[in-house]
């Protein structure tokens, strides 16, 4: 019972907390804080059983989506939308990251938020549910609802509890992401009708759409790919679409920034992995498409790093460093090898851990001094030694030093890129160097030397609560850095699956043959990875010839009829 509904439980625990918070009288701020923290922690604790459970089933070929709940079309049968949840390795890791960072950021807001406490925590918990829903949804419609609904609490968190330019930042954030997602909605509707044309069934179920979406060819497929891509690229954010990010980060309250960097940005890369690649593998294989996206990623890496270098505001520096780090993630995805994709996902997790920590670090100083100007500080390590040590470790983790987590993500990405195209890898290298430069330089200016500013002389070191927000992140950074093998194991199945799908649609791809003696590919040729929703095709050319009816027969269970009327 518990196991069958674990995803729903994880999903709705924060929401229940948000509703309970409404019942607490608003004068009773400490009760509100306790309740919110309890529910945030509960949200994390209920997600913990997933770890052993998921570990046990991580390599099972079917069903591909584990812990599946609900069925197609059970929510709004008229249009074929269902409450369908399910996770694979990628979503599992992101869910764990989300619950952990949610609990940490709520804990970190204890003293930072003084007014409108109740509403703050309530929105935060709602946001938590929204983000978890995005990673769990197995129905495109449900995904879209969560994807959009989660913008609202974030908009309010930035707009109400944000900094001086909060109005501008909040609206910009909302409009940017909405602009991307409405195009995606049209794309979703196209897939929906395409599925209906082929099978006669109206459904938004992912499993069903996985079967039919790759059959779209030609210009339509390219346009669709970009309709989705722009939506996700804005979220990531990739280079030309990144301008909302610095504003949103700088104006958001600390906890908002942590969640924004730690989880929200990952929704973009998650979308690319979950939808763009498996839906349009043929388009992804088109050379100019790959080249374009890789180029944008490389520009993002270098541009983000260079801009970080010149920032005077600590938070803005960290914000731009996100652009650079996320560039690595997209780079890893779009080299299309298992190693690159695995590296990308691990880099996403690591970015959540280390950049989340960096925002917390900035928040600690901001809370004490109410300024983030680097020039205001200096010699902090003598006043706050514990804080300085933690900061150093997290900086090291962020710049990708071996034995810390950052290295574990960046290394596979670089290796995979190098194997595909050496020039790309060479262009990405300065990103790593520059990361070391801007972080170490920042560290030097803020922590080393003598205390020059008299206001900094009496700063208090971390208290127990603040320490508690860092400890889990520190431990994770060390553990992942020293022993990342479990992460790779968990990601094994999904990344091979993804890389396999893209591989199959590469021009000139020949499926591995069972009998090497035969000149023609054997009829029973099976791709390396058994992908439940992809029809094993022998040659990409043949995919056009696949009979629609046949496809319908191939994916039996998901096509429970949805009658649109």
């Amino acid at each position, binding site marked *: 019972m518990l196991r069958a509904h674990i995803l729903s439980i994880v999903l709705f625990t924060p929401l229940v907390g948000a509703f309970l918070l409404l019942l607490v009288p608003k004068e009773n701020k400490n009760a509100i804080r306790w309740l919110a923290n309890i529910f945030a922690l509960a949200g994390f604790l209920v997600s913990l059983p997933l770890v052993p459970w998921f570990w046990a089933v991580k390599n099972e070929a079917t069903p591909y989506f584990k812990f599946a709940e609900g069925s197609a079309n059970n929510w709004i049968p008229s249009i074929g939308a269902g409450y369908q949840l399910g996770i694979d390795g990628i979503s599992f890791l992101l869910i764990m990251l989300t619950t952990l960072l949610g609990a940490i950021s709520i804990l970190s807001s204890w003293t930072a938020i003084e007014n409108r406490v109740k*509403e703050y925590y309530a929105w935060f918990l709602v946001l938590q549910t929204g983000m978890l829903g995005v990673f769990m949804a197995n129905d495109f419609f449900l995904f879209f609802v969560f994807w959009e609904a989660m913008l609202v609490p974030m*908009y309010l968190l930035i707009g*109400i509890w944000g900094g001086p330019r909060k109005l501008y930042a*909040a*609206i910009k954030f909302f409009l940017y992401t909405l602009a991307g997602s409405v195009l995606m909605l049209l794309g979703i*509707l196209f897939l929906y*009708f395409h599925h209906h044309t082929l099978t006669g069934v109206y459904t938004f179920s992912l499993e069903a759409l996985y079967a039919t979406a790759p059959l779209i060819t030609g210009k339509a497929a390219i346009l669709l790919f970009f309709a989705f891509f722009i939506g996700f690229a804005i979220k990531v954010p990739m280079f030309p679409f990144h301008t909302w990010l610095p504003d949103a980060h700088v104006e958001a309250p600390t906890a908002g920034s942590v969640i924004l960097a730690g989880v929200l940005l990952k929704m973009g890369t998650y979308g690319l992995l979950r939808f763009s690649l498996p839906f349009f593998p043929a388009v992804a294989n088109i050379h100019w498409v790959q080249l374009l996206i890789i180029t944008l990623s490389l520009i993002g890496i270098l541009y983000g790093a260079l801009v970080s270098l010149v920032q005077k505001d600590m938070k803005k520096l960290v914000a731009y460093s996100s652009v650079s780090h996320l560039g690595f993630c997209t780079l890893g995805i779009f080299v299309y090898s298992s190693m690159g994709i695995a590296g990308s996902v691990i880099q996403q997790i690591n970015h959540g851990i280390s950049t989340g920590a960096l925002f917390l670090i900035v928040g600690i100083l901001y809370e004490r001094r109410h300024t983030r100007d680097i020039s205001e500080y200096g010699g902090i390590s003598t006043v706050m030694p514990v804080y300085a040590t933690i900061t150093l470790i997290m900086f090291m983790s962020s710049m990708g030093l071996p034995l810390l987590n950052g290295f574990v993500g960046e290394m596979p990405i670089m290796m995979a890129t190098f194997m595909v195209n050496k020039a790309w890898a060479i262009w990405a290298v300065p990103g790593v160097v520059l990361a070391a430069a801007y972080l170490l330089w920042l560290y030097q200016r803020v922590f080393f030397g003598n205390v020059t500013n008299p206001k900094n002389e009496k700063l208090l070191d971390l208290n127990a609560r603040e320490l508690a927000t860092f400890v889990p992140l520190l431990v994770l950074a060390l553990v992942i850095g020293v022993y990342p093998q479990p992460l790779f194991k968990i990601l094994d199945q999904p990344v091979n699956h993804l890389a396999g799908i893209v591989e199959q649609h590469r021009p000139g791809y020949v499926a591995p043959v069972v009998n090497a003696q035969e000149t023609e590919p054997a009829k029973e040729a099976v791709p390396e990875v058994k992908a439940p929703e992809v029809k094993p095709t022998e040659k990409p050319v043949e995919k056009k010839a696949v009979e629609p009816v046949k496809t319908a027969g191939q994916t039996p269970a998901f096509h429970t009829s949805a009658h*649109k*009327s």
Partner: protein
Amino acid sequence: MITIGNLFSRSDYVLAGPMLVLAAFAIAILIVDLFLPKAMKRWNAVLALAGLVAAGFALAKVWATVHYIETPGSKKFSGFLGSLAMDRFAIYFSLLFLVGAAVAILMSVRYMEIENEEHGEYYALILFAVIGMICMAAGFDLILLFVGLELMALSTYVLVGFLRRDRRSNEAALKYLLLGAFSSGIFAYGLSLFYGLTGSTNLAEIADKLAQRMADNPRYPIALMALITTATGLLFKIAAVPFHQWAPDAYEGAPTAVTGFMSVAVKAAGWAMLLRIFLFMLWPMRAQYTPMLIFVAVATMIGGNFAALTQTNVKRLLAYSSIAHVGYMLLGLVASDGKNNSTGIKGILVYLLVYTFMNLGAFAVITSLRRRDIIGDELDDLGGLFYKAPSEAILLLIFLLSLAGIPPLAGFWGKYYIFLSLMETGHYALAVTAVAFSVLGLYYYLRIANAAFMRESVDAEPVKIAPSLAAALWVSAAATVGIGMFPEVFLRMVNWSLALTGDAKIIGLLR
């Protein structure tokens, strides 16, 4: 053969039941009002609400009757010699009008007291307007449609100018009256041309004759002229660009509760009549009117959205936004251009349903800001609402986000079906245009939300909400969230109202 017997058949009066009930209550209010002391004027509102509830029961009776006699090919749900068609379509719209009017009345009670204009006529006029609306939705004859239109329009003119001590209200009423009368004239001219062309006032007969005419000569000039003049009158009533100029002024000047009423019920009635005429009468001319509708729809989206961007008066802003919404809805009609597609029409009905609640809700919030000295409709008046009245601010946010079409709120479903129909019929360019404008739309809704949530309040005076207004607010909010989260039952209702089962074709709706 017309005999006394079939002129006064009993079923006719069952079908006209809702209107008769409303008329009785309206007249009763006018009489009772004479004897009510000033302190007890609230009973007028109670009586009006009772009238709406009674009309609801009469409607249920019609529903049961229609359900009983409705067989394929049956025309028995039409009464009065085929001029009144209380089919499912009409029942759906009547229900919408009743709900809209009820919420508007709930909003009005306290508001009219503050304005010191608590007269019984106000409620009677609302009921009369609803009668007109039902005629517009159920009319199957040009005469009845026109009479219904005028009954509604005249009542609304007076309602707009009800604050006789307020200059803005007077100005709005005069503008509305002049432009409305003008458009009614054009509309009547178009109808007379159709009568001249076909020799009938019955929609179905006109459609038959028009089909022959169109088969002979698809560019028959008089038919085209009739089409254009009729469409002008209809588009004026729903405030589509370029016939929208009256809307912002009338909306701004009218008492806020009336603005809410106008923006949902009056607009829905305009739509009901438009759909009646376009789908039941002008269907043979769809090849001619679709290009025109595309132009008007795009112009309406552009005009409404861009004009709304810079408004500082919330009522005016919502007026322009409601123009923009008409643009999206028109796209639904465009998408039903004869490819056996009913999704667009369904989209319009869903849109009108959700729009009723979310827009009334938004106006209810504005109404609550009315105090002795402040009208409460400037963007600045909303400043710091979140700090003064958090729950009300949250409700306002819900309505605004719903208007912007953010899931999982009701407004999303309206937009969703419009986009769906456009994608289904291959109008990709229009779909992209529409979504682009819906992003633009979010901007001005967020301006209101920003004022309410992120600015400091102008004064510390707490917002007092009368119980009736609170009821209006919570009903609207519950519907907005409820329809948004669990739309299934409402979608089925819309399917039912279009007599659609499975993939039924729009043609099925015609006969």
